[in-house]
């Protein structure tokens, strides 16, 4: 029997829906730019069966992938579960077999496999398109390949056996100059190991290099940045150990005394030449961009001074600190010609932003200008009677790193936005000329809406209405028809009887 009564969200907008969905020809208001041909692909998760313990993290929810396929101004929607071994095992047992976040010691003995923790992945974090394939990612396992048209799960992918690490980041980077995929796995050789393995993979899917690095302490290497000279990895705050896992805790706790390290690995090096810089405690869950500037390296990221996730406990047992959890746009400068291990950190603006920042990806690893993300703009109205008291990310913004100018788009007074994505208008369009796309939760009408916004003028061009609230998103990306083999005619053939 399925019973969510004691789950974290037994009712309301956040409660699980548990179904897969297809909508042919969605309801649209406004005009979708006719040059958009591709799909906005979201990956997130929800509980198919309730968590086994109330202190588990939302990051343990079952992976779910959805697609807004856009072509010729019309939209078709599809959503499917990612069929990981964990998901299938739970279905077979008709109950939750798995314990708390990335701790196999807490799993049911029938699925407890300490040597293969990746079998318990939920693939719920991020989509990736590379080499004509679509993947659902989570940083504790290999990528799960997904059919880009049906969203059926095709299974884990190891690049024909060339990718040796046990894990694969949810935030690999594509170098816009070479077209190569830069990806990595931390805890690469097993639970709580200090191995970071970095791979460069060519567009044809062949591994060009493998670099092995030891990290200062085992932590969430959730994201990285790239320049044309370096792979760069932040190590920060969250800690784990086999002892901690044996004691039945979640994989991560936040150590407010742990320093932040930034590791620089030359892209043509072998890992023995890694250089670590050290700074004060922070969390760099996501990054913005990085680039070389003579002997200096500039790294931009939305950084908080403390734990941004209240469901990952403090190591010292103290309460979560919501003030330290706030993110601001920051610029770090590393002097590679100097001999010390310090760096400078500048807060570009004190505004509290959502740390799911994006750029025009054509400028990844290169000098750039614009940052996009969401924020809770207190100057805009929020109808708490109709929408409840959830913190509302009511605004997408563009921040100019050169001038400090803000441009904003307000979505509505009963809405909260998920991560934004930038789409260039054309392949050769200047930086910032294009569209913003993302989904919003409409709390009052209990549905999900897709918004498409002019990225320069910041006004809405079109809104797509789903007649239901879709599964929460972690990350989403836009992939054009030149990146994935989308079907031209998604209308399925009719094979049934007809009246003569």
């Amino acid at each position, binding site marked *: 029997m399925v*019973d969510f*009564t*004691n*789950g*974290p*969200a*037994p*009712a*309301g*907008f*956040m*409660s699980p829906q548990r179904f897969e969905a297809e909508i042919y020809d969605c309801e649209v208001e406004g005009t979708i730019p006719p040059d958009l041909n591709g799909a906005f692909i979201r990956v997130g998760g929800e509980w198919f069966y309730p968590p*086994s*313990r*109330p*202190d588990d*993290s*939302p990051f343990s929810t079952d992976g779910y992938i959805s697609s807004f396929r856009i072509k010729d101004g019309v939209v078709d929607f599809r959503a499917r579960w990612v069929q990981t071994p964990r998901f299938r095992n739970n279905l077979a047992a008709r109950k939750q077999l798995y314990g708390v976040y990335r701790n196999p010691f807490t799993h049911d003995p029938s699925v407890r496999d300490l040597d293969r923790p990746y079998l318990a992945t939920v693939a719920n974090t991020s989509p990736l398109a590379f080499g004509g394939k679509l993947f659902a990612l989570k940083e504790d396992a290999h990528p799960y390949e997904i059919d880009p048209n049906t969203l059926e799960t095709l299974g884990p992918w190891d690049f024909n056996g060339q990718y040796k690490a046990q894990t694969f980041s949810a935030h690999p980077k594509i170098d816009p100059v070479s077209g190569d995929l830069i990806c990595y796995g931390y805890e690469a050789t097993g639970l709580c190991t200090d191995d970071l393995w970095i791979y460069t993979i060519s567009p044809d899917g062949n591994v060009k290099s493998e670099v092995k690095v030891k990290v200062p302490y085992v932590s969430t290497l959730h994201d990285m940045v790239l320049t044309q000279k370096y792979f760069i990895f932040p190590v920060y705050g969250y800690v784990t150990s086999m002892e901690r896992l044996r004691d*039945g*805790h979640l994989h991560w*706790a936040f150590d407010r005394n742990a320093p932040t390290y930034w590791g620089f690995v030359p892209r043509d090096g072998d890992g023995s030449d890694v250089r670590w810089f050290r700074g004060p405690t922070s969390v760099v869950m996501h990054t913005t961009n990085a680039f070389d500037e003579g002997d200096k390296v500039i790294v931009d990221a939305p950084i908080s001074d403390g734990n941004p*996730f*209240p*469901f990952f*406990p*403090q190591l010292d*047992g*103290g*309460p*979560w*600190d*919501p003030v330290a959890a706030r993110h601001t746009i920051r610029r770090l400068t590393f002097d590679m010609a100097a001999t010390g291990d310090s760096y400078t950190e500048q807060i570009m603006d004190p505004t509290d932003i*959502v740390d799911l920042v994006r750029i025009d990806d054509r400028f990844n690893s290169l000098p750039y200008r614009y940052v996009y993300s969401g924020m809770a703009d207190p100057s805009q109205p929020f109808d708490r*009677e*109709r*929408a*409840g*008291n*959830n*913190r509302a*990310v009511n605004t997408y913004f563009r921040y100019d790193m050169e001038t400090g100018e803000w441009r904003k788009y307000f979505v509505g007074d*009963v809405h*909260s936005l*998920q991560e934004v994505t930038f789409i260039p208008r054309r392949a050769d369009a200047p930086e910032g000329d294009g569209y913003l796309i993302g989904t919003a*939760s409409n*709390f*009052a009408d*209990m549905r999900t809406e897709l918004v498409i916004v002019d990225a320069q003028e910041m006004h809405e061009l079109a809104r797509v209405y789903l007649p239901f609230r879709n599964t*929460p998103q972690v990350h989403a990306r836009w992939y054009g028809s030149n990146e994935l083999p989308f079907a031209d005619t998604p209308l399925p053939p009719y094979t049934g009887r007809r009246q003569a």
Partner: protein
Amino acid sequence: MSNSTLILNRRQWLAGAGTLASGLPFRVLGTTDVETTAQLLPAQRSVHDGMAYVSFDGTGTPWQAPLDSNRTRDYVNSLSREEYLRRHWQI
């Protein structure tokens, strides 16, 4: 565990979910010796950046369901099933 904690069964939730929302403390079932300060406070269903979780340290923002979706609750509850069907379904 606080005396104010409740165990709600599914039927009770469905009957009162809108107004009870997620702010009420509830008893944590099957909890092992998890992190720390939690045991001193009632667990509370909370929401953070669109993600539902259970707060154990009193810092969580309780989710409150929109009133709009429950606006007709009292009216509907005041009617007998027969009267509801007669008025709204012409049965």
